[in-house]
């Protein structure tokens, strides 16, 4: 299946949709290094997304709520998986932390976020969980990490010859992660302790939306699918931001623009309506997607409230992306966690239909199953492609 026609294009996204193995190399070598495990990491405001490969080269993806909570002692019943990074404070992370009223880590530019040691520790914990799902055992793991960064942190180089990473971002990555080792002591819910030593042996920063572009336009071995596409706009409906990225194919060119806040506005409005529950940002985002919330210990359906908030607040977000849908020179690809909100997606489709636009001819949504994680998958692809297949 393909997004623009019914003829299979053989892209990475087509493979993922059809359940066909990518068969990418499970390790890469960079500049004469030993074997490194390639990883795609998209440290989003709402969720941190990871993509990596099993030893057999099969893709594994994870979306972990970017939530952190200092661990407390559980006096009875099932315990919670906890982490201690480089002998630091024990903490909970992700969905389990969310269930224990953990809060979102601060959002902002890469340089601000990586300056927070909780953020760095959280990333280490998330990497451990992803390695476990991919079948890796505790021990020493050297990583080649494709790091998806905000599109506006890829800028024109001062030398003028092409695009590169903004200076603040580059320096923050080097100070916080590049070449750094994080030793994670993981204590499972059953009390089993394992030790994981992770090194960011090399890092490849890449604009977030280019990850989606690579997965949409490349076959697994990195060849561009030549189906005549000349220009594309990617609309990424994220938690913190709504972003537009325009890609020209020949010659390659990328420009980007923030179109304002993302779905966090709707989440906060919903939290205000459910005032008694005192939902923090992380809980509100989760509730917006899941359409349920915990009230006095019981899980309650809040679908009607979610629909009403999206109907009211979602129109502002739709209005901000309308110009992208209205223009006629580019194909439009919509992605990000926002496409998981049924009401928002329906509103976009309705406005597009009113303009005479139809899917898949003029635009497409990245399928739900991949909308959250495709940027991370693309960051993984970038590592494998940039390493040139050396394994």
């Amino acid at each position, binding site marked *: 299946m393909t997004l623009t026609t019914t003829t299979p294009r053989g892209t990475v996204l087509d493979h993922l949709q059809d359940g066909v193995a990518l068969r990418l190399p499970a390790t890469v070598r960079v500049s004469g290094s030993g074997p490194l495990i390639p990883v795609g990491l998209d440290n989003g405001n709402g969720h941190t997304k990871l993509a990596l490969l099993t030893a057999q080269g099969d893709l594994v993806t994870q979306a972990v709520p970017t939530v952190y909570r200092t661990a407390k002692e559980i006096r009875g019943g099932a315990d919670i998986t906890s982490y201690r990074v480089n002998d630091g404070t024990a903490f909970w992370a992700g969905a389990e932390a969310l269930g224990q009223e953990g809060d979102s880590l601060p959002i902002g530019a890469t340089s601000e976020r990586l300056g927070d040691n909780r953020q760095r520790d959280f990333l280490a914990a998330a990497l451990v969980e992803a390695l476990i*799902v991919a079948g890796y055992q505790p021990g020493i793991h050297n990583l080649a990490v494709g790091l998806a960064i905000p599109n506006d942190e890829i*800028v024109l180089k001062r030398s003028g010859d092409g695009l590169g990473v903004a200076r603040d971002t580059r320096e923050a990555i080097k100070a916080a992660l*590049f070449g750094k080792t994080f030793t994670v002591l993981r204590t499972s*819910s059953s009390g089993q302790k394992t030790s994981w030593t992770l090194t960011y042996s090399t890092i*490849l920063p890449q604009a977030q939306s280019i990850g989606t572009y690579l997965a949409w336009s490349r076959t*697994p071995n990195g060849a*561009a699918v030549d189906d005549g596409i000349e220009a594309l706009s990617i609309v990424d409906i994220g938690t913190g931001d709504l972003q537009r990225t325009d890609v020209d194919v020949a010659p390659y060119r*990328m420009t980007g623009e923030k179109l304002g806040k993302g779905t966090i506005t709707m989440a906060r409005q919903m939290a205000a309506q459910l005032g008694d529950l005192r939902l923090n940002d992380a809980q509100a985002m989760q509730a917006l997607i899941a359409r349920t919330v915990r009230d006095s210990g019981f899980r309650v359906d809040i679908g009607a409230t979610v629909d009403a908030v999206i109907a009211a607040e979602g129109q502002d977000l739709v209005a901000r992306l309308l110009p992208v849908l209205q223009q006629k020179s580019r194909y439009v690809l919509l992605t990000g966690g926002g496409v998981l909100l049924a009401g928002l997606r329906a509103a976009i489709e309705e406005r597009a239909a009113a303009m005479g636009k139809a899917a898949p001819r003029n635009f497409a949504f990245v399928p739900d199953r991949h909308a959250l994680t495709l940027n991370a998958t693309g960051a993984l692809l970038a590592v494998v492609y*940039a390493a040139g297949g050396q394994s």
Partner: protein
Amino acid sequence: MSPAGPRANKSLRLAQEELERAQRLLAALPYASEAEVLADAARRGLLLIEAEAPGADRAALARRLRTLLLPVFELLVEQDALPALLAGYRAPAPRVEASGPPAPPAIAPTAAGDVKSFGGGFLDDDE
């Protein structure tokens, strides 16, 4: 394959560890959703429990369980953990040369340059 017929919604209370297991299975196997994992777990689990129940159609149940349990038996044989009850029935496993997964395809020579075109590239110490 699930039985035909109308469906009824039932809620479950699961421990966190069980939820985590379901999420790992969702990531590792071609299920469409966590709900599908749990529904399949329930269907398979009911058949397993039925083996302990009186009055079941033993012959029909045995036919269904035989297929269902094949991956379990393979795991037990691989880990040399077959129960004593079955050990006496186990034929010596044939020697199979491990062929390993097929080699990944060669990366296109243009791929690295494409990544660079969009500002991507490995950080270098001296940059």
